């Protein structure tokens, strides 16, 4: 008897998946938790944090102005190392953005519903990372006020950009990436801005959120178009996110420099970008989750899944490192072979081994479940990955440039204080923007989290949520 009853119950109900939102929270309590964090008085930690990051950002901006008024010579770039920390930082930041778009686009298409807890903040991270990235090539052109030459506009001197240049592709790829990310992010934000508007107590807040919410009233006739747009934006962002870092890698892969001139670059760059991006997502979300008490929404299951992605992409990156080395040996090109020996055993050996340790060896800890579920190991590996991915770009760009074909052209590269502080300043800008974001906007997509609650399914058999429901809710409604 019991056996037949068990057969009548669908498999999914006998073996339920772990809930995406823990403690069986109701919709109202999800809203209260996320929106309430924005509405409460500005906490002291926020002021302390933003004054520190804001100071770094301000000094970074000072360094940028110092460069613009003095010249690119204030950096340590030389000949042959004409691209150094600037391109390293550019690719580092662009890569970080990729996790946000992966979460918002690819995981939407593959119906990974856990993405709802982290997509908003990682998309915001994408935008801020791309802003930081854009600084470096922008100021490296030297005559910053001439950077509009990159745009294909008719000018009297009849100069047009070379559309067949990888650098020109990059201009289009990065600007498209930024614009599409902004649109995608803002579209997702509109229903939540409506939530903020409807909850706002002060007139000023109601006005600001009201203007931004564009009069959203959640009708299904609206959701119908909205969902279609969201799906298609995800669909077009998927090839976009894969193409952006591929295009960035073309800047190098289409050249003839040993260690740059390889076909493995596009997939290798994309895997590395996702690896570094997820590390940065964890770096930002683990503190934000604790400060905003979002443990029920960004659960251990979420962190566990992201750790697994770091493990997979870190291993792909490791495969690429080893395969590059093998191809250099097997290809028989003496310049290529030298470039790779020089990478691991030359004057910058420490950078390469830091890269290899941080990106390939440390993530292997995540094979063990206990390490994926310990806040300190997760944070440690994420920080390793952040550092490792910066070193990866340094290794690829600076080490390849400093010793190319002719020994007479070889030269070491040393950064100056302007290099160092512009880089630190970009971190200041990044974290300052992120702090402003979590202060004024809901850092979790409220409407999307609600849509993955069990009771959001119209065919769900109801059982009362244990938090924020029952008597108190009925009283609140009465």
């Amino acid at each position, binding site marked *: 008897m019991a056996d037949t009853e068990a057969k009548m119950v669908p498999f999914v109900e006998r073996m339920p998946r772990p809930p995406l939102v823990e403690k069986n929270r109701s919709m109202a309590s999800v809203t209260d938790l996320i929106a309430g964090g924005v509405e409460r008085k500005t906490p002291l930690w926020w002021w302390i944090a933003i004054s520190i990051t804001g100071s770094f950002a301000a000094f970074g901006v000072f360094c940028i102005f110092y460069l613009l008024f003095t010249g690119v010579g204030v950096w340590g770039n030389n000949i042959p190392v004409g691209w150094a920390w600037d391109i390293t930082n550019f690719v580092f930041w662009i890569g970080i953005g990729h996790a946000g778009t992966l979460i918002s686009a690819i995981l939407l298409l593959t119906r990974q519903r856990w993405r709802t807890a982290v997509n908003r903040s990682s998309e915001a991270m994408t935008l801020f990372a791309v802003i930081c990235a854009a600084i470096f090539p922008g100021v490296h052109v030297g005559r910053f006020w001439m950077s509009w030459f990159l745009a294909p506009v008719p000018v009297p001197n009849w100069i047009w950009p070379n559309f067949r240049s990888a650098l020109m592709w990059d201009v289009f790829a990065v600007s498209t990436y930024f614009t599409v990310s902004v649109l995608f992010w803002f579209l997702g934000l509109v229903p939540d801005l409506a*939530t903020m508007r409807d909850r706002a107590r002060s007139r000023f807040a109601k006005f600001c959120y009201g203007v931004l919410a564009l009069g959203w009233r959640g009708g299904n006739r609206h959701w119908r178009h909205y969902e279609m747009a969201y799906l298609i*934006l995800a669909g077009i962002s998927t090839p976009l996110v894969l193409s952006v870092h591929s295009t960035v890698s073309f800047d190098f892969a289409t050249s003839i420099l040993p260690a740059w001139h390889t076909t493995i670059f596009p997939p290798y760059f994309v895997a590395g970008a996702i690896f570094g991006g997820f590390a940065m997502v964890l770096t930002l979300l683990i503190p934000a989750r604790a400060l905003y008490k979002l443990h029920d929404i960004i659960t251990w299951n979420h962190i566990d899944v992201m750790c697994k992605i770091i493990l997979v992409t870190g291993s792909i990156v490791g495969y690429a490192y080893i395969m590059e080395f093998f191809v250099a040996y097997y290809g028989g090109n003496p310049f290529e072979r030298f470039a790779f020996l020089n990478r691991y055993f030359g004057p910058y050996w420490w950078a390469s081994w830091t890269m290899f340790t941080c990106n390939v060896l440390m993530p292997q800890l995540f094979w063990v479940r206990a390490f994926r579920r310990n806040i300190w190991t997760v944070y440690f590996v994420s920080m390793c990955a952040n550092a490792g991915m910066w070193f990866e770009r340094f290794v690829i760009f600076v080490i390849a440039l400093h010793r190319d074909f002719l020994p007479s052209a070889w030269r070491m590269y040393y950064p100056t204080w302007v290099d160092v502080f512009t880089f630190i300043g970009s971190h200041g800008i990044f974290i300052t923007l992120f702090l402003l974001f979590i202060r004024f906007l809901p850092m979790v997509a409220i409407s999307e989290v609600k*849509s993955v609650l069990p009771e959001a399914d119209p065919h769900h058999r109801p059982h009362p949520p244990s938090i924020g429901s029952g008597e108190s809710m009925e009283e609140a409604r009465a």
Partner: protein
Amino acid sequence: MSAAAVRKNAFGAVAEFGSAGELYHAAEKVRDAGYRFWDVHSPFPIHGMNKAMGLKKSPLGYIIFCGGSLGCLTAVLLEFIPSSFLNPLIVHGKPVNFFTVPPFVPIMFELTVLFSAFTAFFGVFVLNRLPRLHHPLFDHEPFLRFSTDGFFLVIESVDPKFSDTETREFLEGIGGKAVAVLYEND
């Protein structure tokens, strides 16, 4: 509502439902009753609601396809006109003609994506007649919970079947709670 208020133009009748499931079944009944100018409001898109309301798939996809095609065409013209006619630039000794297409492809791809994204974003708001600064529903205080955990069904007075009394009774009959008829300029 007071007697004086009834004389004003009604905007529509609004009813609240307890859950996504209740709203779903109510929508099926409203659809079957033959109403045309009505909508359901929920904090998130409810799966299958288009079917329950008898709505077709959004046409936005076709519009975005046109936008994307326009983007691709823009890129083709933007690249080939300057490179072939205005300022033929010989790079790597390669000619600039139709047969050297591959290096022009990345920008075609990017502009296709860019134009599609703009069409998608603005398409949603044009099709939804948004942004608008105000709407009669926002005068109905309980409705503001639509963005938290309220599920509402609204039948507008422009519907030919609408009537102050019958529609209210109909909404109460299908399980709507706190049914109210809203009046413009209330």
